[in-house]
């Protein structure tokens, strides 16, 4: 569904990505692991286009989208749950969800989408009129995922969605992600620090290190290799 080939990008004159390639198969969970500062966030932002790629190629559903602006990629069904949430904290929960359906196609389906996210996250319905800034950390993370679902995506990229959450909530986030894949057929690219849970959820794994893909393979193989675990994952 998504194919990234030899992508290069960075900030100003500092290059962060040195040509990583990866592929995300339709209807699967692909996990991208790697230590802090490896360039995972930069890679997701480059895929979505909020950082302009310097070189390489991005293909989505057999169409080249390397330099397509972000809003057009959202139209094609690519969605991001960004690191650090980036919610509209002064807007209500409902307004945040409506913002998720900003694009015309998404707006047509807004009623169905709202029903869907309220059934996935009933607590958001209870807090409908509350400002997003007043929600707890866990509720805010759910709202961020819900806002991404409102864009009517085919593929969701999640950037450390369990960051800073209590263990019980972490499990809930992973359950939600697996549900999105299994029940709603969404394709998922998951960036996580939580290695164990990611290896359990994913069907294919990439490890990014200093801007390059160092290892890729099935989760069983990576779990089985003491070398890989020691060198890149610290477990």
């Amino acid at each position, binding site marked *: 569904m998504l194919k990234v080939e030899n992508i290069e990008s960075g900030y100003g004159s500092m290059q962060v990505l040195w040509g990583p390639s990866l592929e995300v198969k339709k209807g699967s969970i692909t996990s991208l692991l790697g230590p802090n500062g490896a360039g995972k966030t930069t890679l997701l932002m480059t895929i979505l286009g909020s950082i302009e790629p310097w070189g390489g190629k991005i293909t989505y559903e057999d169409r080249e989208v390397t330099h397509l602006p*972000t809003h057009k990629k959202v139209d094609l069904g690519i969605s991001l749950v960004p690191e650090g949430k980036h919610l509209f904290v002064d807007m209500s929960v409902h307004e945040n969800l409506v913002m998720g359906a900003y694009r015309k196609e998404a707006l047509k389906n807004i009623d169905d989408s709202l029903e869907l996210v309220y059934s996935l996250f009933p607590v958001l319905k209870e807090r409908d009129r509350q400002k997003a800034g007043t929600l707890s950390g866990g509720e805010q993370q759910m709202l961020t995922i819900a806002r991404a679902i409102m864009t009517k995506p085919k593929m969701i990229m999640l950037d450390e969605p369990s960051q800073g959450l209590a263990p019980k909530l972490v499990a809930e986030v992973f359950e939600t992600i697996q549900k999105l894949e299994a029940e709603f057929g969404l394709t998922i690219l998951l960036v996580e620090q939580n290695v164990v849970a990611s290896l359990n959820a994913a069907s294919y794994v990439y490890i990014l290190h200093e801007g390059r893909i160092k290892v890729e393979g099935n989760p069983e193989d990576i779990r089985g290799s003491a070398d890989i675990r020691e060198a890149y994952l610290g477990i």
Partner: protein
Amino acid sequence: MIFELLAGNLTHGLLLGGVYGVATMGLSLIFGVINVVNVGHGQFIMVGAFVTLILFTALGLSPVIAIPVALIIGMALGFLFFYTVMRKLIKAPELASLLATFAVGILLEELAKLIFGADFRGYYWDVGKIILPFTTIPMSKLYAFIGSIAIALFLYFWFSKTRSGTAVRSVIEDSEGARVCGVNVDWIYALSFAIGIGITVMSGVLLTMFIPVGINPYMGGAYTLKAFVIAVLGGLTSPYGAFFAGLIFGLVENGAYTLFALIPGVAPFSLTVSLAFWMLFFLLLVKPTGLLGKK
């Protein structure tokens, strides 16, 4: 007697305050969306004043017609200024955009001087007056006030009820969040900048009703300072806050003039002119995050 004078001046201050409010809404909008302080703000007010003067004296058109003309000219200037200069500076250090807007302000002043000369000019739009027990109000000032409220309401409606206005609010709150929702953030930057300049040029039309012979290429600087003070009062990124703060500033300025005049031996006019400085000084003492600090 003093109360009559005070009531009269406060009435004029309130009417002028509406214009101040509109003049500041554009500054706040631009600061809120692209985080740039437009140091050349007042020069765009000057452009509006000259547009009004030319339409009135050369073409015999009323200031009412100058309002939409000013909006169109202002937005065109805003888009031009944005795409030629500002777009590249959004992510640059603050000093770069301060210098660029300062330079554009000077450019506008010198162009105006080249075309119109440095004389003070004015025009007289005679649409009658209202006689109150304590003061007389020219209808033109009342129309300017009504115009300012209409512009503020229009902006409020755009901001809170329309799709593009909501997109602007989302960019003010979190541009990265807006981007992942599919908002074309770069277009919102350009649009907000153009509307911000458009409103500012429109406020120049309204201002001419209060300065019978004050239209001059160098008139803008004083209004830049006032707009800064009002913007800080109003909370910097909130265009509505700016409007209400404008009303308050108009009242304080004109009330203070009356009171300064009571002090023997002082020149009330020059003291009032420095009032904006004093207000800015005390505001920054109370609010040390300063002009550039959000919230």
